[in-house]
């Protein structure tokens, strides 16, 4: 066996704290190593040529590249050696950058560690077996989870690209957060006016199948062939009959139901259609409030419904959709006011959240666009906006910036002046974060044209005094404490991960960070992919972002899906479990432990029972290999012998 080793300087990233020449020299002493060199940028084109040339010149049959993380460049170099005629699985990488040069300063120790990591890689490489991927058919349908603006964009782009799209939306209507907004910054464009048409497109597109008021129950399968169980929640209204006339809503005697669409800015009816432009425009009953469910008698809506659509006995329904890819666009949630006791924790009716204010501003909102304070329905003259209500505050567990509050506060300040010319807005801020096209100018307009008074400092306490709300805070520019007597206080409550985000991630087998936002496969270069192939991210579920950014990501995700589906067949990863029939004793413990049910019992001609791996289903986790007592089932490329080789290399050195 002739192993070739290529040690990368990565400029000074590696060479700065590792003596790469010494590593190469030491590596040459390892039995089996036929060639070892170090090169400035191994991933560069000349760097890769160096490898292909060496393979030909030195007749190398196994390659070790000591460079950055295999999570970064393994594929790059696999392609390289394949070009040179080697099996792509004859490559091993030693991660001497992320795991050595970047975390230690002691050059001597680093160099020594590098030498050993290379030796490990060599010992594993010598155990590498050629692997050949088989190809399988792709189901060219995509499911989009979440019907917000990001999800809709992804769905529309995929559908226009000719794909069948299944959209699953948790709430009764699509549109997400954007549908709730009155205007959008920095153009003061009417939000629903620009979103409405998109919503209609989604509803009417013959390639988009919409499941509203539905949730993901279970996800099975793998890229190209996912089976998705969808729970259609009972609306207690037969949507095939409901015309959305709204008569039931008018007549419903229960007027105190919580309005999820308006974030409780005002109560709604127990049976309701979330908003006038709702798509689908169908009524649903909230059994938490409906008298038919709480008291067991009422039935008004059933009486008045002209099409007899009401059905109190309706049950959840489970449907299954087969798709080849998944776009996750589950959006974000908002911090509960209760978490901000110093701001009243939701006890004071006149300290409301930004989104509630948005609904109040909105012509189709609970106050038909008239700004009035919830407590006494009077028009507020002094409105105080508190940015970072929870954001950038470790004590409430939100150390990060919520991204869009600075901008929508400026917008709301402007709108307030528009609605009530003789009003005065105050904005408490930490820093104004307006790094977008036309954004900073916008926040300036709020101050200069619309006279919003910006006070740099945090608010320490908000409390009612008579009819006023007293906002107590600091002005860090003047270095004094300030108190503002307000009629209405608007809190830019921190944006957080959508509730149930972790559970969704677990269904999808993608990772999420400590705050519940989904982790992309590379923060810079693979921002919409996840580490689970076939699952893509769009919008705020990956990290808080405003509308244009969400739309962009929606399209990006769609592009990824389209390119994935540009081939009819996908190549399977051959690094999967393989059974050695001679060694297998048929105890079938592997069948018990396989997380994917990828192993089945098989009878050989001689009547012996053995385990058999279903190649397309096996995901390559290796649980079976560590279950099998006799090592008969081996996860290819991570076989016992390969790992043992690494272990003994470390332990013997």
């Amino acid at each position, binding site marked *: 066996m002739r192993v070739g080793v290529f040690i990368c300087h990565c400029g000074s990233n590696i060479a700065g704290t590792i003596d790469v020449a010494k590593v190469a020299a030491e590596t040459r002493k390892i039995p089996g190593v036929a060639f070892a060199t170090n090169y400035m940028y191994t991933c560069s084109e000349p760097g890769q040529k160096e490898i292909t040339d060496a393979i030909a010149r030195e007749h190398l049959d196994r390659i070790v590249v000591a460079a950055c993380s295999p999570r970064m460049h393994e594929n790059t170099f696999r392609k390289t050696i394949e070009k040179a005629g080697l099996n792509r699985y004859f490559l091993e990488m030693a991660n001497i950058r992320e795991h050595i040069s970047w975390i230690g300063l002691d050059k001597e120790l680093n160099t020594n560690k590098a030498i050993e990591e290379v030796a490990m890689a060599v010992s594993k490489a010598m155990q590498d077996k050629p692997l050949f991927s088989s190809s399988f058919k792709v189901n060219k349908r995509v499911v989009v989870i979440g019907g917000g603006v990001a999800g809709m964009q992804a769905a529309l782009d995929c559908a226009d690209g000719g794909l069948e799209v299944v959209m699953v939306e948790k709430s009764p209507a699509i549109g997400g957060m954007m549908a709730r907004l009155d205007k959008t910054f920095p153009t003061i464009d009417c939000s629903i006016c620009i979103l409405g048409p998109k919503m209609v497109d989604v509803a009417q597109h013959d390639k988009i199948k919409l499941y509203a008021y539905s949730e993901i129950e279970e996800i099975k399968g793998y890229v190209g062939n996912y089976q998705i169980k969808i729970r259609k929640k009972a609306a207690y209204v037969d949507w095939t009959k409901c015309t959305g006339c709204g008569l039931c809503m008018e007549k419903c005697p229960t007027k105190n139901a919580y309005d999820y669409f308006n974030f409780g800015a005002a109560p709604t009816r127990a049976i309701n259609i979330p908003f006038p432009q709702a798509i689908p425009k169908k009524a649903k009953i909230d059994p938490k409030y409906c008298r038919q469910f709480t008291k067991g008698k009422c039935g008004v809506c059933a009486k008045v419904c002209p099409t007899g659509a009401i059905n109190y006995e309706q049950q959840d329904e489970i449907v299954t959709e087969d798709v080849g890819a998944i776009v996750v666009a589950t959006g974000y949630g908002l911090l509960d006011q209760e978490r901000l006791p110093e701001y009243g924790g939701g006890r004071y009716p006149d300290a409301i959240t930004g989104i509630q204010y948005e609904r109040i501003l909105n012509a189709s909102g609970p106050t038909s666009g008239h700004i009035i304070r919830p407590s006494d329905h009077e028009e507020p003259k002094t409105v105080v906006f508190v940015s970072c209500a929870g954001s950038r505050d470790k004590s409430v567990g939100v150390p990060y910036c919520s991204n869009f509050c600075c901008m929508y506060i400026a917008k709301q300040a402007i709108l307030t002046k528009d609605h009530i010319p003789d009003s005065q807005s105050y904005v408490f801020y930490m820093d104004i974060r307006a790094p977008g096209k036309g954004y900073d100018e916008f926040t300036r307009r709020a101050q200069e044209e619309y006279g919003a008074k910006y006070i740099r400092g945090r608010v320490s306490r908000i*409390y009612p005094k008579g009819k006023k709300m007293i906002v107590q805070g600091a002005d860090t520019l003047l270095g004094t404490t300030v108190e503002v007597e307000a009629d209405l206080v608007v809190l830019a409550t921190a944006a957080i991960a959508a509730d149930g985000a972790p559970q969704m991630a677990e269904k999808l087998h993608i990772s999420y960070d400590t705050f519940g936002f989904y982790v992309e496969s590379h923060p810079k270069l693979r921002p919409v992919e996840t580490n689970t192939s076939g699952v893509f991210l769009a919008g705020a579920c990956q990290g808080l972002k405003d509308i244009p950014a969400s739309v962009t990501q929606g399209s990006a995700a769609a592009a990824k899906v389209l390119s994935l589906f540009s081939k009819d067949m996908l190549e399977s990863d051959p690094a999967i479990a393989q059974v050695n029939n001679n060694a297998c004793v048929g105890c079938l413990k592997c069948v018990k432990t396989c997380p994917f049910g990828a192993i089945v019992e098989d009878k050989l001609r001689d009547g012996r029972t053995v385990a058999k791996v279903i190649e397309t289903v096996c995901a390559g986790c290796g649980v079976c290999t560590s279950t099998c007592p006799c090592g008969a089932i081996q996860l290819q490329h991570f076989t016992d012998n390969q790992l043992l080789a690494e272990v003994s290399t470390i332990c013997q050195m």
Partner: protein
Amino acid sequence: MAETKYAYFCGCSLEGTAKEYDDSMRVVMKALGAELVEPDDWSCCGSSPAHTVDYDLASALAARNLAIVEKMGLPTITTPCPSCLIGFKKANRAMANEVFKKGVNELIDEPYNCSVEAKSSLQVIYEDIGLEAIASRVTHILPDLKVAPYYGCILNRPPELAHFDDPENPIAMDRILSTLGVDVRDFVFKTECCGAAFGVPKRKMVNELTYKVLSMALDAGANCIVVACPLCQQNLDLRQGQVNSLMGSNFNIPVLYFTQVMGLAYGHSPKELGIDKIFVSADHLIGRVTKEEYEKQKAQEAAAKKAPKAKATEETKTEET
């Protein structure tokens, strides 16, 4: 509730200016079946000027007392004084660091092994004893009291040290008092600084701060303030005259300890509870009726309201028979 035993550290204030807090605390704890054992030869808790000038000394002072309790074999030390409490908690936390611990232990005769937990007496009553037990002892109702519970600045803060109640909107006293049947007002200045700490150097500021707290209490519709801290009590009570003269107000609002109110509800005499020791008299507010009477009155009022309805139901009954 089972008999429980606590090391009880009253601290210097409760031996002097806040004697009535100590008295009422002991009375109430006794009534609630909690045994308080005073450590022999206890000394300054360290929250005194010590903690502003010398961290090791402050911790040593606290540790000395904790060490005594440790030796007594009691797991918990309780103190009514939030200042002492923070002193102990700080010491415990700082001494988690072995190096620091060693340094401190060198300063005191008996080494301290950080096995004693410090709890405010309020926490003991609220959490260990619990509202149920608190309610069960009530014999009298105080119908005239409208209280604004004032927690002060350090009883629940900093949260990572205090580990008790909500740092911004604490409710322990609110719940206890309403359990006694007292009318508790929603008081937003519960934790607002009353300035006591600056009583000497910054009189003007203190007066403004105190003024705010007092007026906010009145705005809340309260006719008295209930506290759990000797310094708060002293400041809010004694300073009213001064505030009035400087701010042109005319406050005359009694400031009671929550234990005094509890004592009254448990039927103890104002004398035992040292009600006479506070400056702004509360005598006009502490009229009491026995629980039974009170319930009778309530029942009658209710009956008066229900009367006609009741008749109706009677009729239907007769029909049935």
